[in-house]
């Protein structure tokens, strides 16, 4: 089966610019996650979707970050405007059930200059 796809793989932007990341989960996986992984740290959950509804966005900086999952499949994560501290790898993951194994994508490495 195809894995979790993410694009782009790398992105460099200047501060105050906007950026969007795309994720295509494994077919049939109802739960989708976005994580932020800052260098030297573990992944931090930003937002969790169940189908196309948000079930947890408690750690999403909502003043600048937004995410959506239209039709319960693909998802996009947007940052507007970006700050230097947003430099990180953004990981997308999906799972068949919310308590089940998470399958991770390759991540998008964002550098904000």
């Amino acid at each position, binding site marked *: 089966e195809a894995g979790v796809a993410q694009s782009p793989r790398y992105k460099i932007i200047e501060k105050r610019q906007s950026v969007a990341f795309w994720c295509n989960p494994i077919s049939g996986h109802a739960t989708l996650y976005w994580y932020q992984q800052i260098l030297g740290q573990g992944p931090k959950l930003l937002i969790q979707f169940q189908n196309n509804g948000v079930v*947890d966005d408690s750690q999403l900086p909502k003043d600048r970050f937004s995410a959506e999952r239209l039709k319960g499949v693909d998802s996009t994560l947007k940052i507007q405007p970006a700050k230097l501290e947003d430099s990180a790898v953004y990981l997308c993951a999906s799972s068949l059930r919310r308590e089940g194994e998470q399958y991770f994508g390759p991540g998008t490495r964002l550098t904000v200059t």
Partner: protein
Amino acid sequence: AQTVTQSQPEMSVQEAETVTLSCTYDTSENNYYLFWYKQPPSRQMILVIRQEAYKQQNATENRFSVNFQKAAKSFSLKISDSQLGDTAMYFCAFMTYLGTYKYIFGTGTRLKVLA
């Protein structure tokens, strides 16, 4: 609040030997899950092993096994017969249900297997 601590930032082991990675966590919940994930250099994170807190038996997956001590809130990973392909970052993760499923990852242990 739930926390996960991995106190060993880096470790190394000789090929074919055994190594143990430490993880401790803090929670007031009784029902939860614990995971070890592996993140090889420039590759995707994958699940190594999973443990349900209600199960007393330690989980094993081939060369990987855990020592789950619920009372001590400890969840260590043992890798037997280490192979060069085991070189990776290893993350301990905790999940519990608090109205929704909450996931917390540790800061990781970088393991290098030496030939």
